[in-house]
């Protein structure tokens, strides 16, 4: 299990995936002030939501590289022939994807908060929200990656599959900033837990179907 996590993390960093995610996240956060204009009050108000939307798009970025290469290279066949549980393999992929993208993203959030002129208090709420919500984003990304592996135009389909499922995270995550407070964070944590618990089994079923 740990060997699987380390392998996936090494691959994520070696392919530049983690750096790309952070660069993409910061770029989206930078685009908003350009689009909206230098209205400091407005930026402060929408800043938290912008960070959540950017985090969601950044998590979607590497979806095609999470499962499809292993299916093509026969790696998943080898796991299955060894009698390893596909749900455990998927869970390892979720942990590895989270470790590869969430900590750098949370560090980049500090820079993005500066760009959007967020207060320290709001930044703290956003960061707590990201700690709670990013595992679910990682789980959704792996499950979606498994569902679309082997399809043509997998990237576009992945967006259509994953973004609607992430709406609850976005609502509760951004809602916790807009006066939702601890209640919002609790709902975010509950949603996140549900997604993280279910995703390995969805991913495993999709991988099994993809093998045949």
């Amino acid at each position: 299990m740990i060997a699987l996590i380390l392998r996936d993390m090494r691959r994520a960093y070696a392919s530049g995936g983690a750096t790309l995610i952070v660069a993409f996240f910061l770029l989206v956060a930078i685009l908003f002030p350009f689009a909206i204009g230098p209205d400091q009050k407005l930026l402060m108000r929408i800043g938290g939501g912008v960070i959540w939307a950017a985090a969601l798009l950044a998590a979607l970025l590497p979806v095609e590289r999470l499962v499809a290469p292993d299916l093509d290279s026969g790696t998943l066949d080898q796991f299955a022939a060894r009698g390893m549980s596909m749900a455990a393999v998927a869970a390892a992929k979720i942990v590895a994807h989270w470790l590869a993208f969430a900590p750098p993203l949370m560090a980049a959030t500090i820079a993005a908060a500066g760009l959007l002129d967020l207060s320290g208090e709001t930044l703290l709420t956003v960061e707590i929200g990201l700690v709670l919500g990013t595992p679910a984003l990682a789980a959704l990304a792996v499950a979606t990656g498994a569902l679309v592996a082997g399809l043509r135009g997998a990237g576009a389909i992945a967006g259509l599959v994953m973004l609607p499922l992430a709406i609850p995270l976005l609502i509760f995550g951004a809602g916790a900033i807009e006066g939702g407070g601890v209640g919002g964070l609790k709902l975010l944590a509950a949603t996140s837990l549900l997604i993280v618990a279910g995703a390995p089994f969805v991913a495993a079923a999709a991988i099994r179907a993809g093998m045949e």
Partner: protein
Amino acid sequence: MLFEQRSFALAAGDALLVTGANGTGKSSLIRVAAGLLAPVAGHVTVEGQRALLAEAAALDAERAVAAALGFWARLDARPAPDARVAAALDALDLAALADVPVRLLSTGQRRRVGLARVVASEADIWLLDEPANGLDTAAVARLEALIAVQRARGGVVLVATHQPLALAGAQEIRL
């Protein structure tokens, strides 16, 4: 339907050669035996660990041969993964390539690395799909010798191939 009414049983030391033209289901039979594909009817009973050599290499292209094999050897739940990998590399005459990235290997060399993974796993049951593909005559002879060793230590070998392989006393199925 690729094939039906096929039945075989292999005991310790047995080998089965599955032959037939392209597209008759040799690989599918191997995948059914490996548990990757569910048969429409019938069942597979397996006692012991399986090691699979399939068409796809399943090796991380950017890693060195020894490191890529080491990853798999560590998953085997057997002691001394590094020693097993070193012995398997020796057995397939790959020791000189241990530090070469997998992406630089030729087809035949990649095939041999795949065989090295099977050897290093020390599994009871070898499932080999076209193991001689891309191998030169010396490597084919080495493959035949390795299969003989595996059978001598009480292992089972199932080989699907369209190339002639000399396996003494092996059962044969023509699809």
